[in-house]
């Protein structure tokens, strides 16, 4: 009798486990669970992946990328795309660097078109003052938002295809960033600034707080404001939105401006961490950004997206690249592994969608 009892419990346990597995697969937060399983699996082989230092690494890698993906999310929800985010990062990082730096080597920077106008061997007129950091950051945010605004105007006003507009502005603004410094990177940024990238309150890094605020604000905007509803409406059907009195042009412009703003935030975090202003900052990051958004579940065709999805997508990508950094693989296998994992994740997601569809019909 007791044996049967145990047997029944076992069967019950097994059935329950299956049910849980199924629920996880069907859950909206599937990507999160996938990341956790991935992490857990790796932990068995590489315990140091869960070491405090590495968790800190993962954390510090996640937040700036998340800022970018959040910006991209707004544009994707509108049914657009923003390829210019990386060039916005480069441009703002250069401008912020120029305003804040305390020392510029004349041998390197004398060729810059701004030399003598704004720049000198002691940096800019702002440099060294108390206001350097706050004003520098403000300028970065302002420039990022303005570039986004220009993108948005071109897309909304002139009905130009978003892909081309942002591709051209990627060319232009990354070219501009390189032109402004004539290829040189800017060093000697004030401590107050670089600490954003390395310091924190106790154990919590500053970048976390910055992106936390950004994320919560984005969530509030999308979920709890008129504007947020308008974003989704425009992404689902521009024509219906127009007829329903949504100021579609304004909404689109705001979307791109937000994307630019978020890129500037990411730029602040990245260049603070690297302690330098770089005209090539994030040059090859674009596919990671869009990839993370799409893996997270944000649709490229508009109308769908959530802050949490962005977070999960970023978590997945960062975990993946972090794990690859710890394996002693030859360099050429890395892309193969990366590509395979992306395909696998996508495949699981498709299976999940199919199961979900069946769930509804049955």
């Amino acid at each position, binding site marked *: 009798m007791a044996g049967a009892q145990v047997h029944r419990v076992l069967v019950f346990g097994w059935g329950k486990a299956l049910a849980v597995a199924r629920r996880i697969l069907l859950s909206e937060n599937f990507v999160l669970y996938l990341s956790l399983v991935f992490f857990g699996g790796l932990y068995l082989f590489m315990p140091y992946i869960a070491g405090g230092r590495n968790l800190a690494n993962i954390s510090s890698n996640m937040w700036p990328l998340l800022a970018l993906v959040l910006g991209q999310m707004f544009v994707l929800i509108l049914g657009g795309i923003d390829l210019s985010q990386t060039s916005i990062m480069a441009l703002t990082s250069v401008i912020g660097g120029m305003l804040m730096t305390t020392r510029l080597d004349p041998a390197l920077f004398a060729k810059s078109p701004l030399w003598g106008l704004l720049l000198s061997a002691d940096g800019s007129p702002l440099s060294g003052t108390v206001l350097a950091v706050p004003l520098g950051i403000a300028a970065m945010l302002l420039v990022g938002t303005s570039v986004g605004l220009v993108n948005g105007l071109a897309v909304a006003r002139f009905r130009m295809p978003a892909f081309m507009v942002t591709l051209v502005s990627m060319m232009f603004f990354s070219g501009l960033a390189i032109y402004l410094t004539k290829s040189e990177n800017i060093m000697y940024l004030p401590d107050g600034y670089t600490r954003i990238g390395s310091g924190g309150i106790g154990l919590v890094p500053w970048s976390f707080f910055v992106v936390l605020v950004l994320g919560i604000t984005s969530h509030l905007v999308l979920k709890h404001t008129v504007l947020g509803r308008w974003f989704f409406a425009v992404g689902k059907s521009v024509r219906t939105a127009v007829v329903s009195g949504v100021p579609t042009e304004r909404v689109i412009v705001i979307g791109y401006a937000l994307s630019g703003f978020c890129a500037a935030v990411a730029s602040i975090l990245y260049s603070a961490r690297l302690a330098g202003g770089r005209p090539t900052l994030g040059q090859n990051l674009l596919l990671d950004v869009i990839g993370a958004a799409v893996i997270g579940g944000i649709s490229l065709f508009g109308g769908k997206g959530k802050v949490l999805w962005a977070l999960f997508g970023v978590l997945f990508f960062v975990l993946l690249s972090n794990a690859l*950094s710890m394996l002693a693989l030859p360099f050429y296998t*890395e892309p193969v592994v990366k590509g395979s994992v992306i395909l696998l994740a996508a495949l699981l997601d498709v299976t999940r969608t199919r199961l979900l569809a069946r769930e509804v019909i049955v």
Partner: protein
Amino acid sequence: MNAAKWVCILFVTTALVLAGPSCSRRDDGDGQVTVCFAFQDLETEFWVAAHKAIIETLKSKGIQIIERNANEDANRQLEQIRAAIARGVDGIIIIPQDGESAVTIVGEANKAGVPIGVFNRPPANRSKPALVVVADNLKISEQAVTYMAEQARKLGRKVTPLILVGDLGDSNAVARRQGFMNVIQKNPDLFNEAVEVPTKWDAVTAQANLEAALQRNPNVDLVFTSSDFLYPQVRAVLEPLGKWKKIGEPGHVILGGVDGDLRAARWMKEGYVDATGVQDLFVEADELLKALLEAMNSGQKTPERWMEDPGFALTQANMAERAMDMWGFKLLAEQGPAGAQ
């Protein structure tokens, strides 16, 4: 379900956030010595050869290698180095994206007490201790172009020089362009204004733009490529125009470059190329590894030493005595006659 979701998220976030940098200790694993080798990219032969030399030396010493390609992204390289440190590597070698990011990355290694060696691109300043082996790109290209200028003077007329400029986001490319310009500007009587051809370190772009530039300026008599890996493109454009001629033949275009790779060696030997600025790759790799392994063995955490690779210009004039100082010639010799086409 909803509660479970939030618990999960909360768990992950707190884990990530609270795991401070301080609470970890290096994990030495099974006692195996591990070195992280992080490079910016492997797109030209110079980097490929360097990569090969370093990997082989390390392997021969039974050291486990974690190699990482940053794909030309300084931030990604920083993340990779941090991950490697977290894994508990015993030493680090980087080919940084540029001198400025090298400073930050060296700082990370210093903080963690892992000895670090910087290959070929020196940190922008010496504020953080590291083992550094440097080649002065500017000087090397100056030397090569100086020799080319001497050859040009022999033509006895004003000469139009052309330079294939690398990616303007790459500090080496910028330094090499500067070296070239310095020589051109020193000889205003000899040179017309230089024709600049952007390549973005991309063979296709280089070839297309070079072809266009030569159409516009058919009278170019001197071509300098910022990296030897573009010689095949120079040849592909010059040959149909009847300008791919050996030295001494009429219509020869004075050719020079920087790196000293296999093709440069071959074509110097055959007499097409006049001069090439050489970074002594093998010596650089050797010196750096020696110093790093020494530091690792003696338990030094932040060793500091700057090693200069003076570099030199291998020219048709000094080829007889110095050819074997150029790594490309060594590779050519290894390949033997079979490798030559």
